[in-house]
């Protein structure tokens, strides 16, 4: 594994760990200020929507402020869907890293997410498409696209279920 592959893989692992352990502020810190967080909806059985501005998404946050909204709501302890908070375990694999060009790297990964809450245990899966950017020497997430493969969704879905 090259140093870059190691660095990218660690970053992706770290994100999963921070979510599962509820270190929300550190999780947000992995993202650039202008980061896009995008979960398209399914346009039909085989394709997701591909124009986030003009089509319906499950989540489309256009900067880090959108992630802060989510964390604000979780931490408020006033969200019906988030109290009690579901337990989650993300298992990330298949991390593939592109080459770094002008401080930017693309990577893909798969994730199996097991959660436990009022509905009992649920296992779901996502495809991740990352764009990473080097800021002050450190790689940060500038875009994360999550293709959540479930369609008939069970229960509330938040950033820690994806």
């Amino acid at each position, binding site marked *: 594994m090259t140093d870059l592959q190691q660095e990218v893989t660690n970053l992706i692992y770290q994100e999963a760990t921070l979510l599962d352990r509820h270190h929300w502020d550190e999780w947000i810190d992995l993202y650039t200020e202008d980061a896009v967080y995008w979960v398209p909806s399914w346009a*039909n059985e085989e394709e997701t929507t591909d124009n986030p501005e003009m089509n319906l998404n499950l989540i489309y946050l256009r900067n880090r*402020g959108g992630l802060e909204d989510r964390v604000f709501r979780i931490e408020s302890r006033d969200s019906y869907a988030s109290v009690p908070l579901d337990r989650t375990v993300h298992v990330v694999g298949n991390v593939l890293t592109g080459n770094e060009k002008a401080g930017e790297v693309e990577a893909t990964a798969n994730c199996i997410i097991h959660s436990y809450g009022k509905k009992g245990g649920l296992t779901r899966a996502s495809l991740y498409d990352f764009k990473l950017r080097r800021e002050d020497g450190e790689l940060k997430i500038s875009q994360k696209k999550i293709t959540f493969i479930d369609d008939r969704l069970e229960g509330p879905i938040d950033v820690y279920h994806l």
Partner: protein
Amino acid sequence: MDGSILTDNLSTLVDDRVDEGMFRVDRSVYIDESIFEQEISNIFEKCWIFLCHESQVANHGDYFWTEIGRQPVFVHRQEDGSLKCFINACSHRAAILTPFRQGNAKTLTCRFHGWTYKCSGNCVGIKNEEDGTDRSRFDLREIASLASYQGFIFGSLSADVPALDDWLGAAKIWIDLMAVQSPEGLEVVPGSSTYKTDGNWKLQAENSVDGYHVSTVHRVFAHTIAARESKGEYTGIGKTESGRISGGVPTASYDLGNGHMAIWAQHTTPEARPIWEARERLKNELPPKQVEWILTKGRNLYIFPNVMLMDNPSTQIRVMKPISANQVDISVYCVAPKGESTKARAGRLRKFEDFYLTAGMATSDDLAALEDTHEGSMARSAKWSEFNRGLKSITHGADADARELGFEPQACTDNWNHEVLYHGFYRHWLRMMKGEFQG
């Protein structure tokens, strides 16, 4: 559970003594599977059921697969531009005929044994056909009734339904307020979401016009948006309104008859709504009262039994598919005026995503509350849910706002915290369950 509810006993489920100050519903209506079976046969298979929006079947051959109650059907756009709706099952061995929920096929060939049907439903091909087969016996089964109102397509398995216009009645103008927003009509935006809900379909019906929960369940949404705004983010049309949710604005609730219900609440920042850009055009095209309602009142409309139309910060079609007493599937679509600016469309979608989805920051909380309500209803030791708030404020017939806009509700109150609109819902529910509603 204490066994099945006989038709004779249905009346005991709705304790309707408004003159004595009491309207309550036995919570077994949410959890009893025998009641649910009767709802399928007496309501969902007898009523007008919302099927889809015309933009979802715009062109010749476009089909849309949905359900009436639990029966699969598909709407199919004909060569002459008309619509037909068929039972979605091959006449031979019942395989579903449409490979996708939505698609285009000018003829449909069953993927099981290869029988072929024209758009018209005529059986035109039988693989290895035997001599003397009368194909016309195998034409697809059309549903008994199909009609559209302002682009919203409804169907019924019963031929014995009132005319759709009469059925919608006082709800019609509420649909108009959405449909007239563009001279080109409305369109469903690409993308949708379906979520499985562990709760009874009537709890979703109640929730969709429940103003009372907003300032508790959605308080966190209002706070989240306030925190967002304090950082100077998402201004102008990018803003998601929270004023309506925080309370203290004029509101009203309506029993529209035939089980239909509606509420509105005044917008505090109408200029952030996507329709605001069209205000001058609307003023030229429509009566002033309609324009005022479109621009300044956030509206939730529930049409008995399976569809809700929301025109709040964003615009939504919400469709229910009952699965069992304990489960309902909900599909949501963003519906928007054709021809709006890309800025307005993007704003509409972002507001939709903020609030409405099970991955959003409000509908997810509704869903959790609904599922808890369902679970609590299992407690047979406490069997009644009361719907008495607002009893002293009932206006029978139209209030001033309704009169000015031009609709005649059964009853209304001047506060969306009130619960008396549900009386109309449960009275109609009971009439249909007892087989007393003949249109």
